[in-house]
C-alpha cells in the first residue's frame, strides 16, 4: 500500500477514539509546555547570572602575570604592558581592553572598616567594558575629573555608615614595603546582583591607586570581545604572541562556580527531559497497548489482504508520531506563549538570592536550543518506548487474530 494511504489511515485511526487520543495529546501538550517554560526560565536565570558576573566582575578574558590569580601579589605586574595593550586592541574580535590594578587593602570610615579588594580602573575604558554603570543606584560613574573618587556598593556604604560625598581612607601596602594611606571621596554607589562582589570590591581611578601604591604597571588586563561566542578563536589569536611569564584566562577559569552552575543547570535540563519522556512514554505505551489489543482482528485482516508486517507496524507508528507531534508542537507553542508573557511582564524570583548573583526579576527570552532538546529528544525517547507494545503486531499470529 502506498505510504499516503497508510498515513491517512493512521490519521483517521487517531480520531476513532477521540477521548483517549485527546487525553494523551493533552498530557503531551501540558507536559511540553510546562517543561519548556521551566527549563527556559532556569537557563535564562543561569545565563543572566553569568552575563552579569562576566560583565561586572571579570569580562570575557583576562591577562595576568603568572601567579597573580592565586596570590594577588602587589609586585606581580604585567611586563611591557603598553605594547601588549596595543597589540590586544589590534587583535580582531577584541572590542575593549582595560587595564586594572588589583590591590588588597583596608577601607576605613569613622565607624567601621572593610577589608577587601581595591580595583584601580581607567574610567574611559572601564565604562565601555563593564556594565557596572547600569547598577549605580546613587551618584555617577568614575570620571577623570575631581580628586580621588571612589565607587562603593550599597552594602559597603551601609556597613561603613557612609553616604555619597563621604570621605574614606584606603590603607594598602606600597611597593616599597611601607603602609600607604590616601583619602577618597564617594562619588557613586552601586548595587549589583552579586552580594560577594558588592561586599568585597571598591573601585578607584587607576592613576590614584598607582600613586598610592607606587605600582604603575597593571596587574590585570580585562578584555571584552565583540562576540562572546568567538571566545576560543580570539583566545588563540591573543595567546600566539603573549610575553613569557603571563597567562590568559577566560571567564570559565575565573568564575569556576558559575561555570559549574551552568553545568548543573544543563544536567537538571537533561534529567527533566528524561523524566518527562519516561512519563509520557508510559502514557503512549498504554495507548498503543490498547490499540493493539482492540484492533487485533482488524490488523490481522489488513495482513490477510496482503499488507506486510512492516507496513502495518509502520501504520501504528505513524499514528503515535502524529499524536506525539500534535501534542509536542502544541505544547511548544503554548510554552512559547508563556515565555512571551514572562518576557513582557517578568518573573519575580524570591528575594534574597542576591548572594548567588541572581536578579530579583527575570525577563527570560526563548533559548532555541531548548526547542531542539524538547522537540527532538523528548519526542524521540517517548516514541521509542511506545515501540515495545507496537512490536507485538510483528509477532501477530494471523489465524488466531482473524478468529477473534
Amino acid at each position, binding site marked *: 500500500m502506498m505510504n499516503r494511504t497508510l498515513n491517512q489511515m493512521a490519521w483517521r485511526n487517531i480520531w476513532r477514539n477521540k*477521548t*483517549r487520543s485527546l*487525553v*494523551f495529546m*493533552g*498530557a503531551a501538550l*501540558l*507536559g511540553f509546555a*510546562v*517543561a519548556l517554560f*521551566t527549563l527556559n526560565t*532556569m537557563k535564562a536565570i543561569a545565563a543572566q547570572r553569568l552575563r552579569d558576573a562576566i560583565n561586572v566582575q571579570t569580562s570575557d578574558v583576562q591577562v595576568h602575570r603568572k601567579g597573580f590569580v592565586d*596570590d*594577588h*601579589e*602587589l*609586585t606581580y605586574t604585567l611586563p611591557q604592558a603598553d605594547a601588549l595593550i596595543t597589540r590586544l586592541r589590534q587583535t580582531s574580535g577584541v572590542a575593549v581592553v582595560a587595564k586594572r590594578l588589583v590591590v*588588597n*587593602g*583596608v577601607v*576605613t570610615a569613622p*565607624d*567601621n*572598616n*572593610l*577589608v*577587601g579588594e581595591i580595583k584601580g580602573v581607567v574610567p574611559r575604558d572601564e565604562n565601555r567594558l563593564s556594565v557596572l554603570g547600569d547598577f549605580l543606584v546613587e551618584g555617577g560613574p568614575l570620571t577623570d575629573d575631581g580628586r580621588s573618587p571612589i565607587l562603593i556598593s550599597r552594602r559597603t556604604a*551601609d*556597613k*561603613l*555608615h557612609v553616604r555619597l560625598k563621604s570621605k574614606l581612607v584606603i*590603607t594598602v*601596602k606600597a611597593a616599597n*614595603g611601607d*603602609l600607604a594611606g590616601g583619602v577618597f571621596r564617594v562619588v557613586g554607589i552601586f548595587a549589583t546582583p552579586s552580594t560577594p562582589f558588592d561586599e568585597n570590591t571598591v573601585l578607584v581611578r587607576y592613576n590614584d591607586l598607582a600613586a598610592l601604591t607606587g605600582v604603575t604597571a597593571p596587574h590585570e588586563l580585562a578584555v571584552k570581545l565583540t562576540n562572546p561566542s568567538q571566545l576560543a578563536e580570539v583566545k588563540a589569536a591573543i595567546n600566539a604572541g603573549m610575553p613569557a611569564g603571563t597567562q590568559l584566562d577566560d571567564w570559565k577559569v575565573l568564575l*569556576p*562556580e558559575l561555570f*559549574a552552575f551552568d553545568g548543573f543547570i544543563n544536567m*537538571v535540563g537533561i*534529567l*527533566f527531559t528524561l*523524566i*518527562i519522556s*519516561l*512519563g*509520557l512514554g*508510559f*502514557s503512549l*505505551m*498504554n*495507548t498503543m*497497548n*490498547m490499540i493493539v*489489543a482492540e484492533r487485533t482482528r482488524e490488523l490481522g485482516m489488513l495482513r490477510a489482504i496482503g499488507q506486510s508486517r512492516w507496513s502495518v507496524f509502520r501504520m501504528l507508528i505513524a499514528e503515535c508520531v502524529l499524536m506525539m507531534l500534535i501534542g509536542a508542537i502544541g505544547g511548544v507553542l503554548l510554552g512559547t506563549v508563556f515565555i512571551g508573557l514572562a518576557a513582557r511582564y517578568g518573573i519575580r524570583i*524570591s528575594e*534574597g*538570592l542576591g*548572594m*548567588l548573583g541572581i536578579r530579583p526579576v527575570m525577563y527570560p527570552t526563548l533559548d532555541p536550543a531548548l526547542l531542539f532538546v524538547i522537540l527532538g529528544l523528548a519526542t524521540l525517547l517517548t516514541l521509542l518506548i511506545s515501540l515495545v*507494545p507496537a512490536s507485538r503486531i510483528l509477532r501477530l499470529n494471523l489465524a488466531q487474530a482473524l478468529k477473534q
Partner: protein
Amino acid sequence: MNQLLRLAWRNIGRKRRRSLIAISSVAFALLVSISLRSLMLGNYDKMIEAGTKNVGHLQIHSAGYWTGKSINELMTDSPARRQQLAQAVGITHVLARLQNGALASGEKTTKAVQVNGIDPDIEDGFTNLSGRLSKGSFIKNQSTGVVMAEGLARYLKLGVGDTVVLIGQGYQANIAAGKYPIQGMVRLGNPQLNLSQVYMPLPLAQAFFSADGLASAYLLTLVDANQTDPVKNRIQATLGNGFEVMTWNELLPEIKNSQRIDTTIFTLLSSCLYLIIGMGLIGTVLMMTLERRREFGILQAIGLQKSQIRLLIILESLLLGFVGVVVGLALALPFVLYMNAHPIPLTGESGKSFEAMGVEPVLQLGLKPHLFALMGSIVLAIMGLATLVPMGIVSRLKTSEAIK
C-alpha cells in the same frame, strides 16, 4: 461492598497489560521523585552539619553587630556570663569569639586576613580545629602565638616559628598592631578560608584589638538541632533588646538559598512528572469506563444502583493507584536505604567544590519517612482526582441504550 471490592480486583486483572503499565507508571513516578528528593535532602543535611560546625546552632551578638560586623559593636564577655548561658536548658557548648579583619605581613607580602580570637579548648571540642593541624602545635588558652591557615602562611612565605605582623583597627579607633610567632598551621578545606584565617587565644585577641573583656559573638550548640527557634526565643527574651540572637539559618543564608533553589527545581520537576502521569491515569480510567458501557448497562439491568457502579469505578482506580503506590514505595524504600548506607564518593571537580564548602564529598540519600508518606498521598490524591472524570459518564448512562 465486599463483593464490589472483589469485582473491582478482578476487573483490574482483566486487562493485565494495561493495569501493569498504569501501576508501573505510578511506581516509576514515586521512585523518581522520592529518590531525587532524598538525594537533595541528604545533601542539605550534610551542608547544615558542615555549616553549623562553623557558626554553631545559635549566635549571640550585641544588637546590630551582624550587618556591619564592626569592631565597635562588641558585647561584654565574662566567664560568669558564659557559665550562665551554658546552664540554660538545651545548650551543650558556649564558645566565645572575637573576630575582625586585619592586614597580615610576612617578609615581603601583605594580605587581608580574618583574626579569630577563640577559646582553644572548647572550640576544639566542637570544631575539631586541631584535627586539621598540618604543622606545629595547636594553641592553648595561655599561648602567645597564633595558628595560621596553611595557604595564608604559604602566601606570606612564613613557616612555623616565624613571626607574623598584624595591623588593623582596634576597639574604639585604637590601632591594633602586634607581632606574633606562628605556633602551628591548619589546612582548611575552603580555599578562601585557607587563604585568610588566623587563630589566636581569646585573651590575646582581646589585647590585640584593645578589647579587654569584650567578644563579638557567642556560639551556642544545642542538644537538639531542631530546637533552634524555641531556644532562640527563650534566650532573646532573657537577654533583652541589647543583643541579637541568630539561628544558623540566618547566619548562613547560602544554605537556605541553595535549598530554595533545589526545592523549586524539585517542585517544578515533580509537578511536571505528576501532571503527565496523572493525565495517563485519567486516560486509563476513562478507557476502563468507556469500553465497558455495555457491561455497566447490564449490571444496571440486573439491579445494581448507579451509585454502586460509581463505587466500583472508584474502587478499581483506587486499587490501581494503591498497588502502584505500594510497588513504588517497596522499590524506593530499599533503594534509599541502600544508598543511605552506601554513599557514592564524589571525585573530580564536583568533589572539590564540596570540599571547598567543608562538606564531605559524597552523595548520600537522606532517610526521610515523611517524604514517603507525602509522595504516596499525593499520588493517591491524583488517582482520586482521576476517578472524578468518568463519574459523569456513568450518570449519563442509559440502561436501554447501553445494553443494545
